[in-house]
């Protein structure tokens, strides 16, 4: 009996604590959905949770009763009746779970098919986005607008966008908990999914499949804008970046062209080996997880694979560390130039 109570206490305390801390980061949590997909998924989670809590309650009640009622008392040495079974009871606890599972199966299958719908069938002319996963960053392409960018995925709010997912190296998994569940990005194969944000906002995305040393830091953002804002973003992206005005930034541009252009494009429509840096000054983060400021840019350029940056990201296909190629001063200039790459 002690055990049953303790267990329930633990459960109550933890549930209470969960309520007290809320449902987690509102930009990240699947418990606080901001997309229609995540809404459906949470509904199903809650339905199954209630059914399962009901099942648990039945088990716990019988369990607690049995432990109290039938525990051995001091001096009691009787031999209990040796019961073989009880067909009626056994049928009951076979049939009831089957019924519960059927109740669950219907919305499950229905939703499985809804989530697999082609966005083009439900939305007129949906925005097409090709997302390509790399060890440890996300390339984003809008074929109809001829825009290539990285890390921040801009979408119009309130409509389904069509996403094609693939990978150029290992398997990754695309996950924006607040908007909808995961889909794997497999090399050699293309997966399709849709995503819809109910309201404008920035939503955090993660890689959910172990993909190497910096799997933990392969974050990205989905930025939902009102339709007109989104169109403005598209137009801005295609504007060339303003020429740098300060001397050091101009020198930075020169250094960038000599050292970085081989891998990083800076104009909207061009794919490159590394992330396209057009509009990097306006990105939410550096490398997906650091605040977007000059200090972090320098940190990144100096040694991207440092222990506190992204370990393993300087591999054969990755970005080399520039601390032995450029001086600190030069790195600072490059960072300054990058900060001028704005689309505003």
């Amino acid at each position, binding site marked *: 009996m002690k055990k049953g109570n303790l267990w329930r206490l633990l459960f109550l305390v933890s549930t209470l604590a969960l309520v007290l801390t809320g449902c*987690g*980061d509102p930009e990240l949590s*699947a418990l606080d959905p901001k997309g229609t997909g995540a809404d459906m998924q949470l509904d199903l989670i809650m339905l199954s949770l209630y059914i399962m809590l009901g099942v648990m309650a039945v088990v716990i009640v019988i369990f607690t009763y049995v432990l109290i009622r039938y525990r051995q008392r001091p001096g009691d040495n009787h031999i209990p*009746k040796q019961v073989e079974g*009880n067909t009626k009871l056994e049928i009951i606890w076979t049939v009831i779970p089957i019924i519960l599972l059927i109740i669950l199966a219907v919305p499950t299958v229905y939703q499985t098919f809804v989530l697999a719908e082609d966005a083009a069938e439900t939305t007129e002319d949906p925005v097409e986005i090709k997302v390509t996963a790399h060890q440890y960053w996300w390339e984003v392409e809008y074929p109809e607008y001829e825009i290539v960018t990285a890390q921040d995925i801009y979408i119009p709010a309130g409509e389904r966008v069509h996403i094609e997912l693939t990978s150029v190296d290992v398997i990754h998994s695309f996950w924006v908990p607040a908007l909808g569940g995961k889909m794997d990005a497999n090399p050699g194969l293309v997966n399709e999914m849709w995503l819809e944000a109910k309201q404008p906002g920035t939503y*955090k995305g993660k890689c959910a499949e*172990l993909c190497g*040393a910096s799997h933990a830091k392969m974050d990205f953002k989905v930025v939902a804008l009102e339709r007109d804002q989104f169109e403005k973003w598209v137009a801005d992206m295609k504007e060339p970046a303003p020429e740098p005005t300060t001397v050091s930034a101009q020198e930075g541009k020169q250094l960038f062209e000599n050292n970085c252009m081989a891998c990083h494009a800076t104009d909207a429509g061009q794919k490159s080996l590394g992330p396209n840096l057009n509009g990097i000054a306006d990105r939410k983060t550096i490398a997906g997880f650091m605040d977007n400021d000059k200090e972090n840019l320098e940190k990144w350029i100096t040694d991207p694979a440092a222990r506190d940056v992204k370990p*393993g990201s300087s591999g054969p296909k990755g970005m080399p560390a520039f601390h032995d190629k450029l001086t600190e001063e030069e790195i600072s200039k490059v960072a300054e130039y990058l900060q001028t790459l704005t689309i505003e």
Partner: protein
Amino acid sequence: MSTHVSHAHKKKNILWDYLTTVDHKKIAILYLFAGTLFLLIGGIEAILMRLQLMVPENDLFVGTTFNQLLTMHGTTMIFFAAMPLVFALMNAAIPLQIGARDVAFPFLNSLGFWLFFFGATLTNISWFTSGGAPEIGWTAYAPLALPEYTGTGSDYYVLGLQLSGAGTLIGGINFLVTIINMRAPGMTFMRMPLFTWTSFVISALILFAFPPLTVGLFLMMFDRLFGANFFDVTMGGNVIIWEHLFWIFGHPEVYILILPAFGVFSEVIPTFSKKRLFGYHSMVFATTLIAFLSFMVWVHHMFTVGLGPVANSIFAVATTAIAVPTGIKVFNWLFTMWGGRIQFTTANMWALGFIPSFVMGGVTGVMLALPPADFQFHDSYFVVAHFHYVILGGVVFGLFAGLYYWWPKMFGTLLNEKLGKLHFWLMFIGFHMAFLPQHWLGLMGMPRRVYTYLEGQQLDTWNYVSTIGALIMGVATIVFAINIVMTFVKGEKAPADPWDGRTLEWSIPSPPPEYNFKQTPLVKGIDAFWIEKMQGNKEMTPAEPLGDIHMPSPSILPFIMSLGFFIASFGFIYHVLPVIIIGMGIGLGSMLARSLKDDLGYHIHTDELQEKGV
């Protein structure tokens, strides 16, 4: 047969004795010690990971190091700790439960152990090599596991699992034949103790589930070592094939671990409720049904792969169906206790603690089986919480229950009950503290296998709590270790039947003589020993007159054979042909020697047999 190899070699030194033993009781002890060793290693790896995740943006183990820890933790716990510990209990109990003098293939039994042991050692040696341990997760998905992305650690993973997998397959065949052919007279299938039943079923699962893993590992090995292109998409390969093969094996594997635990509970709960198992027939039926279904559900590990809504729906429905037989089992246990006289021994505490813990893991399993919901759960901490609830709360609790229950039979001493209960409570509390919060962490957006998380994403509190829970489990393990050491130093001598047991193993001395049963017992029904006790008998009724007992000879060949393949593995990993040839030569030469030299065994004469033990 002649007695020219009489047991003069009985009193040799203990190391040689264990290296050459073909006695299932000693092999059980080998499995127990090897399994416990790797359990400790895997546990330390877990605690190191939890320390890294205790606070956000921690700097203890980052990147590759952390990935090595998580890979080795998973691989070690599943293949090198849980599997051998299950085999330890099977070896210790099954021949005794069915009234047999030995297993069907004593030699292969030993070979199975040594293959496992060398495989496990091989994989763990990778820590000390320049290439480091594998860093690919215990699932080793291609292409991450290909040489383009990871070093020799992955080779150690592939070859280590190949070796230990062969050992497991041999063990599975051995137990199937043992249970089919070696049962005592009257021990029909429907009179077998439930632990024997579940072991029988999981041996069949091993038989059919390990070959896909073998093939998968071969493909991976060919890709890694010989330039094949199974998973290389630039050459037309397909990375999903590995996932299919791995999970066709992987899902039955989960049941291979949990069903014996179910078997243990089905022994422990009736024994300490003083009642026969409620619904024996439906328990057997549920076990076989779970086994059957386990081959048709593997895609629920792959819902996010993009196989389409049809495949996802079919496998979702098949998966949820497993909840029905599992539910039958839980209610049968509850109703075994109903009307009984429940004793709170340590063994039974584990069984009782298991019921709520496992039900929690089971219901989250059903939730995971729903593809739309799984799109959120998959590869998040929710899954981590789920499988630790079933594997720790189910398998490990079952192993501890079995260990406290059968320890006196294995070693002839009783573990200390007070320390045992402390061990249980610390483990129980630590376990829930560590893993309950992980459900929420997953839903709050924390993917699994991440070495860190950022500040300000509200993941800090529960990660901290989880780590404290893991540390408490660490303390519990220390208590257990103290208990074992104390028991070896001055343990209480165990009687033949310390728990007022119901099955045949309690009718013979603790520990049993090497031939187990002086005379093969005659089995009259379920719970054969209990029936005799109820009829006022102190011993089983014998089924045969007293006679000489034939025993198999010990042999060093299994050890040498496994050693040969172990050596060859290094040759494969580092591409050194002479080492491959020497290793394979030793291995195949030992096989040839085994084929050419017949084992005549030896006899134990009636005058050497002990008093007790029909």
